[in-house]
């Protein structure tokens, strides 16, 4: 048997995974072969070195963040009749909400106010499932459906607040403040349609989003409010949206298009 073959046996020897005959064969070889004996010593050393690597413990904020998110009342899951579900399914898929979680008229999962959202972050691979699931739990399905389906990669929730509905049973107003992985910021505001629209601004121009006109106000260092942000505002299904971000227009249009 070659030394290369013995190397595999040496590793399995350390895992106590050799048959008695293989073990005897290896031990006999090790007595005669200095190279393989040295390999055994290096493999043993590898285990010792890796075993000595330091360990820490999670920062306290991690426990707070996890428990803050799981302590919210869970969304009641019940099957939606097919006829009722048809309309909301497209919305649900757009925001990554399971169709079974949608129940018409379901109350928001949290009362109006600012939700505690320490450090909740979207999935780093960009599917944002963690963030979307978190938002679903925080907002309840009706409000989550009002948010865009596309959220930029690595988005981290800085602040999430819900405004009281303008009328009983009406939609909550949602403010979502995201810090993005690349340092950009994105604020999504959703208001009922009767909310006062932003007045005409000379610098604003019209942009087509999904065939509908939205107003785009580019960042303007001369203006106090929009000093660092582009603003894209428009309406979807009777709700008014305002996306305020350091992201460029093309990204804002993509986000706006994902709102259903």
């Amino acid at each position, binding site marked *: 048997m070659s030394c290369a073959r013995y190397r595999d046996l040496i590793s399995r020897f350390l895992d106590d995974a050799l048959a008695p005959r293989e073990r005897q064969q290896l031990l006999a070889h090790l007595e005669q072969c200095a190279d393989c004996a040295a390999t055994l010593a290096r493999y043993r050393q590898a285990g010792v070195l890796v075993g000595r690597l330091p360990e820490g413990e*999670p920062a306290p904020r991690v426990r707070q963040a996890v428990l803050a998110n799981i302590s919210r009342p869970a969304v009641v899951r019940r099957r939606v009749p097919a006829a009722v579900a048809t309309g909301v399914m497209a919305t649900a898929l757009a925001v990554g909400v399971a169709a079974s979680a949608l129940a018409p008229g379901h109350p928001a999962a949290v009362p109006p106010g600012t939700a505690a959202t320490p450090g909740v972050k979207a999935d780093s691979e960009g599917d944002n499932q963690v963030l979307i699931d978190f938002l679903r739990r925080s907002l309840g399905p009706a409000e989550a459906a009002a948010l865009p389906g596309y959220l930029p990669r690595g988005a981290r929730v800085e602040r999430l607040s819900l405004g009281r509905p303008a009328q009983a049973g009406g939609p909550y107003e949602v403010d979502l403040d995201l810090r993005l992985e690349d340092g950009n910021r994105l604020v999504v505001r959703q208001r009922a349609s009767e909310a006062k629209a932003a007045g005409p601004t000379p610098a604003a121009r019209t942009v087509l989003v999904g065939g509908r006109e939205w107003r785009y106000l580019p960042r303007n260092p001369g203006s106090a409010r929009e000093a660092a942000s582009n603003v894209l505002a428009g309406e979807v299904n009777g709700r008014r949206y305002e996306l305020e971000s350091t992201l460029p227009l093309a990204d804002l249009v993509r986000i706006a298009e994902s709102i259903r």
Partner: protein
Amino acid sequence: MGEDAAALPADVVARARRGEAAAFAAIYDRYSRPLHAYAYRLLGSAAAADDVVQDTFLQAWLSLGQLRDDERLEAWLYRIASNRCFSVLRRKRLLSLFSLDRLRGAEARHERNDQEGVAERDLVARALRRLSPGLAACLILRHADGFSCEEIGEVLGISTQAVWTRLSRARAAFAEAYRREAQGLRQ
């Protein structure tokens, strides 16, 4: 597995699955530290390990219904954490592909001024990062977390025989990477 799992009540997973936050908090308190240690060793960054732990438990909370055997909780959590770590490493490797070798020389020079133990740990960490994530995870689970080959197979979703093969390749690759790193340090 790594530590005494009997510390948790037998029905803790069932209670967490029913939405009992206190039960899930008990699971967090039992496993967050070893999972953090695992992610830290694999990623080499405490902040990244924090993110992995947070993502792992949020994912676990959302997916508890998919855990078929409650006694497999630990392996299941490690599997979620492993996948998170592998994602982070894939992304990180893409970003640092070109900068690693350039930085290595500067880091190695800097190390000479450090304490010997710290320098050796960094040497080990750098050697580990030269391995593929799957091989590095095998070595860490075996030697730092004290998992058996069967348990590692359960975490990584591979057979015990495949774990033996991976460990053999991992030990050979680590020994070579460690030798090179140590050589770079001496130069």
